[in-house]
C-alpha cells in the first residue's frame, strides 16, 4: 500500500513538471525575453533563426544565442556571434527595428564592422533607439 501511494505521488509530480513553464518562455509571445509574436519558437535555435537575416555575402560566422530584456521602455538585446573556423573572420552587422504595425520603427542603421578571432565568440549588444521599436532583426554580412 505504501508503495502504491509513493507511485501516485511520483506520477503527480511528473505530470506537474510536464506542465511547468519552460525557462525563457514564461511570457506568451516572448522567447528568452525577445518578442516573437505568433512565430513558433520552441528553442534558442528557433529564436536565432527567426531573428537573424543574412544579407550580401554570407558569413560563416553565426549567431548562436540571443537574449532580450526591457530597460525602461526600451528593448535591450544581447547576441552571441560564433566563429568556429580556424581563421580570423571579419564581418558587419546591424539591427533593423520594427514597430507594432510591422513597419520600420527607425531608419536603417549603419553597418558595424567587427573582427572575430579564430574559434571564438563575440557578444554584441544594443538597445532599441526608440520605444516605438517592439521587434527587431539582426542582419549579418561577411566583409571578406
Amino acid at each position, binding site marked *: 500500500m505504501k508503495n502504491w501511494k509513493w507511485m501516485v505521488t511520483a506520477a503527480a509530480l511528473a505530470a506537474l513538471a510536464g506542465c511547468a513553464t519552460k525557462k525563457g518562455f514564461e511570457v506568451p509571445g516572448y522567447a528568452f525575453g525577445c518578442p516573437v509574436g505568433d512565430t513558433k519558437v520552441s528553442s534558442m535555435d528557433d529564436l536565432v533563426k527567426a531573428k537573424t537575416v543574412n544579407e550580401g555575402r554570407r558569413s560563416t560566422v553565426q549567431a548562436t544565442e540571443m537574449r532580450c530584456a526591457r*530597460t*525602461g521602455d*526600451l528593448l535591450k538585446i544581447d547576441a552571441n556571434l560564433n566563429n568556429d573556423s580556424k581563421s580570423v573572420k571579419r564581418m558587419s552587422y*546591424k539591427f533593423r527595428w520594427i514597430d507594432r504595425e510591422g513597419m520600420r520603427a527607425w531608419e536603417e*542603421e*549603419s*553597418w558595424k564592422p567587427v573582427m572575430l578571432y579564430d574559434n571564438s565568440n563575440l557578444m554584441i549588444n544594443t*538597445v532599441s*533607439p*526608440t520605444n516605438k521599436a517592439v521587434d527587431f532583426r539582426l542582419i549579418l554580412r561577411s566583409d571578406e
Partner: protein
Amino acid sequence: MKPARTLALAVIVSAALAGCAKETTRYGDSRGVETVTNQFGSTDLQLMAESMARSMNQAPIIASANLPIVTVQEVRNKTSEYIDTRAITDSIRSELQKGGKVRFAVDQAAMNQQVEELKRQQSDLYAKDSAAEMGRMVGAQYRLEGNIVSIVKQVKDTKDVYYKLNLQLWNIRNGLLEWSDEKEIRKTTTRG
C-alpha cells in the same frame, strides 16, 4: 631605330588612353563600411554617434526624468588629424531628439543667431502680440561635453590608428557627473 619608334608609339597610345579614361560616378550606401583610408571616416562617425546616443538613452537620468533639457558643448579634438567634432555631436543630438527622451536648449554655437532673432522680433517690424518675448528662454539642466583622442603607430608597411571618444553629461545645477561613456575604434592598414 625600331625599338625607339615602338616606344614612342606606346607612349602616345598610353597618353591617349589616359586622356580618354572613362570616369564613372555612382551612388553608394551612406551607411556602408568605408575603408578607403584609415583616417577618421563616415563609419567611425556613425558608430560613435549611434553607440553614444543609445548609451545615453539608457542613463537613469534620461530614462527616468521627464524630458530633461540638455545643451551640447564642445567635443575637444585631441587627435593628430582634423575631425569635425560638431558633426559627431550633431548626429548624437539628432538620434536623441528622434528618440524623444531629451530636449535640447540652444547651445553656445547657436546663441548669437538665437539672440539676433529675438532682437529682430522685438523690433517695430513685428506685431507685439505674436513676437517672441525676451526673457523666455529655458536654460539647460545638463551639459554634454567630451573629447576624442587618437593613438597612431606606424612602421614601414603597417599603420595602426586607435580612436577613443569620451562623452560626459554634467548636471549644471550641482556639478555632478550624471553619465559618461566611451567608444573605441581600432583600424589597421597594411600595405602589400
